[in-house]
């Protein structure tokens, strides 16, 4: 009997170390804000985006975000703006527009109630919804949060747009103060259930902090760090969208 237990333990250990070695092999060079492919792929394709880009040569995006979707600086520094710039340069010949709907201090539930108003007069192919932070700050019941996010995503899908969710920021200093886990779990579950891509901002920033790309512990009041993080986030997000839409930029550029 003991032999069996030992064997099982050995198998467990073997699998685990294998997984860790693989994780280690993926590690990017320190100091760059690289993101491993595993964090930038999704099993759910953005079909509306692919169609619009390939046939209509246009891509209209609406970003619904809270305070952490902006650096509160003159335009062009927040990650939605950086994503727009990156998409434009990666998709030559495609008319890209990105509009940001800031919903400061609003929970997912409050945003969902306002959804029609937010999209009034707009016909995007893609809505990127960044949420969870305000709910975590107010300790909204994760079950209620789940209902709201699920409702919101369903309502968006009903309008015939592709949806991407963005989860919370990783902030090492915040870990004793904000309980992020349940909200991250909810967003992962809703994305899986509704079959939409989730841009895992939390995991990506966590990785950057670990590999030394950014010192997210920094207490500095300067905006330089925020500016650089948003730039990296915007570029990673553009890559994520292009991958999820399964667009090959090389095949697009010719018809300019």
């Amino acid at each position: 009997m003991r032999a069996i237990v030992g064997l099982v333990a050995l198998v467990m250990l073997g699998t685990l170390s294998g997984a860790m070695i693989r994780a280690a092999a993926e590690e990017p060079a320190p100091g760059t804000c690289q993101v491993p492919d595993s964090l930038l792929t999704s099993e759910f394709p953005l079909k509306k985006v692919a169609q619009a880009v390939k046939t209509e040569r246009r891509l209209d995006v609406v970003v619904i975000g809270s305070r952490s979707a902006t650096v509160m600086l003159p335009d062009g520094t927040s990650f939605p703006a950086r994503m727009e710039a990156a998409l434009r340069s990666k998709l030559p010949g495609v008319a890209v527009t990105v509009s940001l709907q800031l919903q400061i201090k609003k929970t997912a539930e409050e945003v969902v109630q306002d959804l029609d108003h937010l999209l009034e007069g707009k016909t995007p192919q893609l809505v990127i919804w960044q949420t969870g932070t305000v709910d975590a700050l107010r300790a909204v019941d994760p079950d209620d949060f789940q209902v709201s996010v699920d409702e919101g995503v369903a309502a968006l899908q009903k309008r015939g747009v592709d949806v991407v969710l963005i989860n919370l920021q990783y902030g090492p200093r915040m870990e004793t103060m904000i309980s992020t886990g349940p909200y991250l779990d909810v967003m992962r579950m809703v994305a899986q259930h509704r079959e939409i891509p989730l841009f895992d901002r939390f995991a990506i920033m966590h990785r950057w902090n670990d590999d030394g790309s950014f010192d997210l512990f920094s207490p500095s009041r300067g905006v330089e760090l925020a500016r650089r993080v948003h730039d990296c986030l915007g570029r990673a997000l553009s890559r994520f969208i292009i991958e999820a839409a399964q667009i090959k930029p090389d095949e697009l550029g010719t018809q300019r």
Partner: protein
Amino acid sequence: MTAVPKPPPTGSSEAAARDDVVRRLPQPQRTDLAAGGRELRLDLFRGLALWLIFIDHLPPNLFTWATIRNYGFSDATEIFIFISGYTAAFVYGRAMSSGGFVVASARILKRVWQIYVAHVFLFTIFLAEISYVANRFENPLYAEEMGILDFLKQPDVTIVQALLLKFRPVNMDVLPLYIVLMLFLPLIIWLMQRKPDLTLGLSVLLYVITWEFEINLPAYPNGVWYFNPFAWQLLFVFGAWCALGGAKRMAALLSSRILLVICIAYLVAAFFVTLTWHVPQLGHFVPRLIEQWMYPINKTDLDVLRFAHFLAIAALAVRFLPSDWPGLRSPWLRPMILCGQHSLEIFCLGVFLAFAGHFVLAEYGGGAGIHFVISLAGIVIMSAAAAVFSWYKRVAAKGGKDTKSADADADLAGGGS
């Protein structure tokens, strides 16, 4: 993980074996064992749970890989609550038999008060920490997250809500749960001593009702308690049931081979599911149907998968770690056992050290090396403190021998802490 130990020695040969153990043990254990059979396995696993809880409260680092939540559904909290139920029922059950319901209840309430004070103390430390952060930290990247400090602007509400156990900052959820469970302990023991199976049955019923009607206690500013006492009581009562004779009755079941196979199969399955969380590429191997049925694995309401996972670990622990295992007396496991014997103090110290660790990381940057040192230092400090507590208890017991010692033993042995 917890040992479901044997009841106090009754048979002559067993008692003799235990006396032998007692003689070889250092002083504090000796008094306890003499007083009624201290189970070192319980202390060991509770000490382990305390260490794991401390590590899980720190930001993830190398040590985090060693905590059991990465290898299955349940984690250290289950161990802690189960053993607390076990020891509390054991100690206060004896008190109730000898001193009666009223006296035992009074002692339990005294213990509840101690835990409450400990909780408020930790809250004060938390306030101090985040007030400091609020004044020092203004990184615009986290302007939104700093909104968490808004509650400092209305201390009247916040502090009152904290005293009512409704406002519980991150990492401060276990003690309120414990307070509520201990409040009901007199009733649980009273009924358990008369109708053990009925008591356990009622506990299961309450658990089922909780799931069916989604009962929980409200929290401030929103939502519900992170550890739902109506669900988590199941572990606590189950621990009490084991302590008051249940473990003995389960002995045959625990040594059956079929159970062993089921436990191992379940633990392996749980391990692979957990692995898919860390290596998402493996997620495709989990059938969609099972995924839909299984998720979410709810910690707040003590998901039945978690409970079963804990039971499987406990069954294996009891089977492969006999109570007379010589390792229990090895100096290497002494620190862990000592920590388990002073669990309330060490738990509070652990929460404080986790705060302090965060603070150090925040002030001096968060390299992997410093992370490692902080985790290690925390465990060393916890062990040293436990050793000091034991030493003091021993000295104090020598001083005021007769009148005080029974009471002191009870507090040490469990107080459930």
